[in-house]
């Protein structure tokens, strides 16, 4: 099987809910964003349209980040296609950051907390297993997914714009939506084979 995500740009309102739900789920430190929302406008006044594009790791089928990683810290789970990082192996060379054409990797050399006064009890609890001086990124909430829950950003999206499922299963909702609504990926010309698809607005 191969986990994938579909983000419906018609539904998405650019609320940052995914970015923040992800933060809450993983306690990522300042400057590390497994999920982000990009904003841009097209056209000229008054025929202008605003676009929000939520991004996260695409869990590429042919992931350049894995290829570039000298230690094997970046790897793909064979059973579900999730691209993950083994933080015990990572040397912090950041080659993967240069290789990822989607800028979805972050180097964690930040202070591990948001307030000057130090880590909040939440941060202390949630980030206990974080390592510093390694690269971090979205892992499709693998722990949640393995326990049968959808990824945090999917579960929380207030407009139900994010759908999670098996891309290998042609009957799954993700496969069906991609087919019916003309799902597309980012930078397909690079041949990375992203597992995150977008539905046109």
């Amino acid at each position, binding site marked *: 099987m191969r986990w994938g995500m579909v983000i419906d740009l018609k539904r998405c309102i650019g609320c940052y809910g995914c970015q923040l739900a992800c933060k809450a789920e993983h306690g990522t430190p*300042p*400057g590390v*964003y497994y999920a*982000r929302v*990009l*904003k*841009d406008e*097209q056209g000229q006044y008054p025929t202008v349209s605003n*676009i*929000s*594009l939520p*991004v996260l790791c695409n869990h590429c089928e042919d992931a*350049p980040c*894995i*290829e*570039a*990683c*000298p*230690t*094997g*810290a970046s790897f793909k789970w064979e059973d579900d296609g999730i691209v993950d990082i083994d933080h015990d*192996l*990572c*040397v*912090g*060379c*950041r*080659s993967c*950051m*240069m*290789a*990822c*054409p*989607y*800028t979805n990797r972050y*180097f964690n*050399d*930040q*202070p591990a907390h948001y307030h000057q006064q130090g880590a909040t009890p939440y941060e202390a609890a949630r980030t206990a297993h974080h390592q*510093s*001086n*390694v*690269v971090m990124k979205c892992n499709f909430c693998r722990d949640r997914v393995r326990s049968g829950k959808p990824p945090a950003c999917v579960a929380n999206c207030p407009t139900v714009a994010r759908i999670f499922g098996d891309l290998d299963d042609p009957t799954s909702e993700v496969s069906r939506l991609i087919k019916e609504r003309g799902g*597309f990926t*980012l*930078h397909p010309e*690079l041949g*990375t084979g992203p597992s995150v698809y*977008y539905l046109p607005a």
Partner: protein
Amino acid sequence: MTEISAKYEQLVQDLRRDFRPQREWGEGRGLFLVIGHFLVGVAAGAWLFGLIFNYGPGLVAGFILAGGGGIAHLAFLGRPERFWKMVRHVRTAWISRGFIGLTLFLAGAVLYLPPLVLADWPWAANSALGYLGWGMAAAGMVVLIVYMGFVYTASKGIPFWNSPLHPVLYMAYALRGGIAALLVTMALFDAPSPSAASLVTIWIAVTAIVIVLFALEIQGALTGGNPAARRSVREMLAGRMAVYFYGGTLLIGLVVPLALLSGQIAPFGVGVLAAIGLFSALGDFFMKYTTIRAGIYLPLRPRQLRHR
């Protein structure tokens, strides 16, 4: 503001930009990577020319530079204590290959060099051990000369680097660096040295090749249709990196050596040759520094959706 919070502020600003510059390689601790790459490149070149001209001090310089390069690499890593894990992915990762190249090189040099330059060494340079060392170092050297450009070319996220010319360019740098190293060593060591004239000729030739390759690369970036690559060129020629490019790469690395070469500034001699070498090397450093720091990520802005 602490260094780390300054970096965070910068990141937040960068993430709002259409063209986000990469900052992990080349800024802050990332500077050590540029230094490391630079030193290792020069080292391999020095070794090569040391072998060609059979010039011992050149080999020594190569070894020392490579050692320094290795240390700089370690200083760059987020987790230097795990450096040995970098061997694990030779199959796909250029960094792994480079790491192995450097290890081979250093280990080979340790086997080959001491008997060559020191008296009373347990084994001789032309012993089996010495030949093994020679072979390892030579192999390592080739890897070091070749791999570096590929590290950048393999960076799919940064279109400016993602050019087929990059590896060739880096090879040319290694050669230019090697010559430069030899020019400097000649002033330092009182040993019979290769003819200055041939070194200078090679330097001129390699420099010409570097200029052509670099021009081609810039031209490619400008016409290749990738806005991020174009943006990188702009950063270099008219943006954040322009000072380093004009002052470092062009002035220090090209104009000054050429002026020195012309003999107009100072009478020709070992000192001037060394100065040419030094400036040339410094210029190369800035060349790498500017290209690396001018790296701009492929934009992911929603605007892209239009071209779907």
